[in-house]
């Protein structure tokens, strides 16, 4: 997928954006934005400034990531507050459409179209003349490495191919801002790496790349900034390097072990010296362990599983848990409350 990293339509935009910086603010600004679906809270009182580079929205299912992205791209209107995108208010559908390319989480397409028809057709909807739309469509399809499949019906595409043809449409008109809702979903590790490389290339050229994920470590190495969101509230935002430093230096690894008798497991676990904390999870169905030596701990855990009758359902890093991330971000003590 080398075409993805190659020179492309975004290249010289950086120069252009350099000259326009004085005219329009080079940021996406949320001020006091709330979105309600009837009675249901989407996001609440969001204040955010997003700058060029890769920004990751991280939060569990239903936390409001898609809502935020739909708001930035004008698919939803805020119930309260204002959003401006490079100085453009979000009710200017035309101005917003030029600046934003959005690859949504929705995995559906107009029926009966080939990949090429899809990209070409919507470029034409935007008013691109026929010849230019054709050139742009092919350029975008090449960039996502889908040339061979371009003349086949989208209905026959794999999940990863559908993801990529959506991405091709999102970048086809050369927007400054790229919004991608869970772009890594359905991609194999190779494709993920290529996708990540593309994001980094775009960011290096001065683009805004906004991606979402419910797994922090899927995006942490990639991101210039992370926005942690939960239950519709932005819990924290900041540069990922600070966050990561804090996590590495001050905080031992947190692990959540789901098992039937967490109390019993805790007694076994405490026998190992590298464990500095082990407490039963609030729901009584798991054990939260903090350890300075994760490799050692996992070996020990294997032994425990073998030598006792404990049923261990799952072992997950507790730092996937947004609460844990939040504590790291705000520099808390790491205590579970």
């Amino acid at each position, binding site marked *: 997928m080398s075409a993805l990293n190659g020179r492309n339509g975004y290249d010289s935009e950086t*120069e252009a954006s350099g000259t326009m910086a004085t*005219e329009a603010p080079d940021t996406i600004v949320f001020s006091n934005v709330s979105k309600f679906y009837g009675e249901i809270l989407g996001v609440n009182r969001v204040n955010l400034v997003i700058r060029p580079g890769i920004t990751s929205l991280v939060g569990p299912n239903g936390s409001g990531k898609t809502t935020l992205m739909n708001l930035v791209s004008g698919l939803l*209107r805020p119930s309260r507050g204002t959003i401006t995108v*490079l*100085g453009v208010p979000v009710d200017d*559908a*035309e101005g917003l459409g030029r600046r934003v390319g959005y690859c949504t989480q929705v995995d559906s397409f107009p029926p009966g179209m080939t990949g090429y028809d899809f990209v070409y057709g*919507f470029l034409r909807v*935007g008013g691109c003349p026929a010849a230019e739309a054709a050139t742009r469509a092919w350029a975008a399809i090449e960039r996502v490495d889908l040339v061979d499949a371009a003349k086949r019906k989208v209905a026959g595409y794999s999940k990863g191919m559908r993801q990529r043809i959506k991405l091709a449409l999102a970048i086809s008109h050369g927007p400054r801002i790229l919004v991608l809702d869970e772009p890594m979903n359905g991609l194999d590790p190779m494709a993920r790496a290529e996708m990540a490389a593309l994001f980094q290339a775009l960011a290096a050229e001065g683009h805004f790349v906004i991606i979402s994920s419910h797994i922090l470590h899927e995006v942490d190495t990639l991101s210039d900034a992370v926005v942690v969101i939960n239950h519709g509230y932005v819990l924290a935002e900041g540069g990922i390097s600070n966050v990561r430093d804090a996590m590495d230096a001050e905080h031992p690894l947190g692990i959540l072990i789901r098992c039937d008798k967490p109390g019993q497991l805790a007694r076994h676990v405490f026998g190992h010296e590298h464990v500095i904390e082990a407490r039963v999870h609030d729901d009584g169905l798991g054990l939260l362990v903090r350890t300075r030596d994760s490799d050692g701990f996992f070996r020990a855990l294997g032994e425990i599983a073998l030598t006792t009758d404990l049923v261990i359902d799952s072992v997950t890093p507790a730092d996937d848990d947004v609460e844990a991330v939040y504590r790291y971000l705000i520099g808390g003590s790491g205590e579970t409350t």
Partner: protein
Amino acid sequence: MNGAAIATGADTAAGDGRAAGGIGPDGFASTGGAALWGRQVGGIVRLELGKVLFSRRALIGWGLAAAPVLLLGTRMLAILLFGGLDEAGRLPTIIEEEQVYAQVYQTLIMRLCLYFGCAAIFLGLIRGEVNDRALHYYLLAPLKREVLIAGKFVGGLVGAFTLFSLSTLLTRLLMLAFAPADAARAMFSAPWLTHTLMYLGITFLACLGYGAVFLAVGVARVNPIIPTLILFGLESVNIFLPAVLKQLSVVYYLTSLCPVPLDLGPIAIVATPVAAPVAILGLIALAGALLAWSMRRSRRLEVDYGEE
């Protein structure tokens, strides 16, 4: 504000020309105004025609357009096969056929086929996209919502008129089958030709009027079944409606334009037609008002495919 925004948009995308094979600056912004809107409407019509004419959903439209052709075709065959209208084998004259056609047109084509055909086509413009979960592709395209709605409407109109002008034309041609010897003469002499053109005009106005109604219902994002049936009921009893409501009924204008009035018998007194120019202008005004409302309303259009 807007002007500045567009200008920076052009700047922002100015570099794309190179990737796009050196085709100059951003194709979206280089020519603003009417030319751009024209291309955008054209782009939407392109996609829309595919759906209205050549998709699975198009079968409803084709079926409704074919129904009157099949009905009149069957009748014609029956009369020819069973040897005419009476024992003497008399075939209907073209004047008699005009009366039969008026019946078929006003009751079947105008009130049923066009009504439900336009309902299917124009409700599909927004609602169909929601069902396909594809509306967001349109909402994300760099164009004004007003232009989007206009493009969708034009697309529906071209599609619906293609289907139903074909239907009107074919049913009109079937009339001539009874007068094979005279067909050529009848065809180019009044009233057949003028009536045919008038019916085509009415078909167009029907697509325009009903189309605007159903586009508005679609944009309002309400469940369309109830409004569709209520409107159908109102249009059906249209001649009994009070004068004010009549003016808001599409059928009222269309009936007034029909070249051959139906023999309504005793209820004919309540059916007061309006003059043709009034009818045409009334219909255009009605459609224009609904279209304007749809455009305004579309600014608030949000994606909502239900909870994911």
